[in-house]
């Protein structure tokens, strides 16, 4: 290159070419300063340490959420010399580093999204009682995947699981998780539940789940979401945005699917309820038959009684008309030649008569008419 005279444009092109080959991507970690966003789109900041300061340029889409000067962040970017504005690193991703900065970034994002109502309880939807198909977003080789699927298999069967194998930590994780959520939402009828999960780790390991893009994608999912990140004590913003939060991957499986043994107990209870209902039906019917029998019996008896009463009346009547009863009262039956006499005109003087009294018959002779 000695003695070669370049134009400024040639120099910029040459330097950029060299940078592209030598340092296509660099990772720089430092303290954030002069952080500003222009027109809601363009991003400018510096990263500095005690001795140096480097300029960065990018778009807000590469941000994990709101940031502030003083935070420690790790930036992945491509160093470039701009034809007019000089040197800067074109930002691809930004991640807060160190517990303090991560917490600060999460607090800022939480406040921002809370204000928007992203975590509001009214937004929460119930999960399907028994999912038909689960879109599972996690790392395929992770303990979280093993825990979730092991407990799910123990508890229930017949579910289709579509696994979206993604990075769950590192610079690529947020975009991969967002893409997986959006992909599953774009497949109509593929999954009726989304499960996003990973196991425990450091604050930096779990940072993707406090990334604004991930949190917004969870909140925007049309498919109900169940999110379980880290251990019981870890609470990420993605979990706050989810319809249901589980404490661990194991707990996520417990909340996602019912338990066979509980369902089996329920079936036994239903069986006994139906059995009792049928028995009650049989009892009701047999009680009805019994009641019918009693009614018929009482009707027969009542008919019998009324016949008896009727009979006794008739008997009394017969008794009244019995001539012997009249004889007892002092009347007599007079007969002539075996025939009853009812008129004095039928008798002549000297004729023999029979007079029947209550206790016997005597003979008599007609002596005259009076």
């Amino acid at each position, binding site marked *: 290159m000695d003695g070669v005279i370049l134009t400024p444009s040639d120099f910029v092109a040459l330097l950029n070419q060299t940078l592209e080959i030598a340092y296509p991507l660099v990772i720089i970690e430092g303290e954030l300063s002069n952080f500003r966003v222009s027109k809601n789109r363009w991003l400018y900041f510096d990263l500095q340490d005690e001795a140096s300061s480097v300029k960065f340029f990018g778009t807000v889409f590469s941000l994990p959420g709101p940031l502030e000067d003083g935070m420690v962040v790790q930036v992945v970017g491509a160093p470039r010399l701009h034809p007019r504005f000089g040197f800067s690193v074109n930002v691809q991703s930004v991640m807060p580093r160190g517990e303090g900065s991560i917490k600060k970034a999460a607090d800022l994002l939480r406040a921002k999204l809370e204000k928007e109502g992203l975590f509001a309880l009214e937004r929460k939807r119930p999960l399907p*009682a*028994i999912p*038909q198909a689960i879109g*599972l977003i996690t790392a*395929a080789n992770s303990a979280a995947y093993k825990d979730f*699927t092991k407990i*799910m*298999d123990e508890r*229930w*069967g*017949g*579910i*289709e*699981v*579509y*696994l*979206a*194998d*993604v990075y769950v930590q590192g610079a*690529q994780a947020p*975009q*991969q*998780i967002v*893409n*997986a959520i959006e*992909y599953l939402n774009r497949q109509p009828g593929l999954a009726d539940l989304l499960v996003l999960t990973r196991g425990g780790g450091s604050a930096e390991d779990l940072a993707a789940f406090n990334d604004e893009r991930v949190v917004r994608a969870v909140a925007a999912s049309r498919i109900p979401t169940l999110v379980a990140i880290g251990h019981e004590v870890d609470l990420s913003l993605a979990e706050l945005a989810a319809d249901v939060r589980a404490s661990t991957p194991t707990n996520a499986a417990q909340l996602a699917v019912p338990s*066979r043994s509980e*369902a*089996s107990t329920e*079936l036994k209870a*239903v*069986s006994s*309820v*139906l*059995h009792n*209902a*049928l028995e009650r*039906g*049989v009892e*009701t*019917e047999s009680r009805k038959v019994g009641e019918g029998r009693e009614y018929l019996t009482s009707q027969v008896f009542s008919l019998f009684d009324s016949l008896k009463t009727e009979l006794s009346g008739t008997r009394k009547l017969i008794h009244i008309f019995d001539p012997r009863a009249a004889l007892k009262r002092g009347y007599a039956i007079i007969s002539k030649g075996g025939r009853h006499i009812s008129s004095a005109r039928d008798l002549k003087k000297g004729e023999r008569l029979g007079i029947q009294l209550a206790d016997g018959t005597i003979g008599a002779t007609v002596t005259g008419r009076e």
Partner: protein
Amino acid sequence: MAKAKPTKTYQEMAQELATYIGWFESDSVNLDEAIAKYEQAMKLLEEMENYLKTAQNKITKIKAKFE
């Protein structure tokens, strides 16, 4: 090897079962009908028990890349 997927989902069977429970909880006491419904419900319960014992989950890894 997973068994053939039953034609009805567990949820569908559970809904069907609920209609039997509803019928028995109503006032109708036609004994012949009750016996027939009881037998149908018992058959359904057996299918559901069978589902719980045999159904297996199927995991498919999505081929699409999410980079």
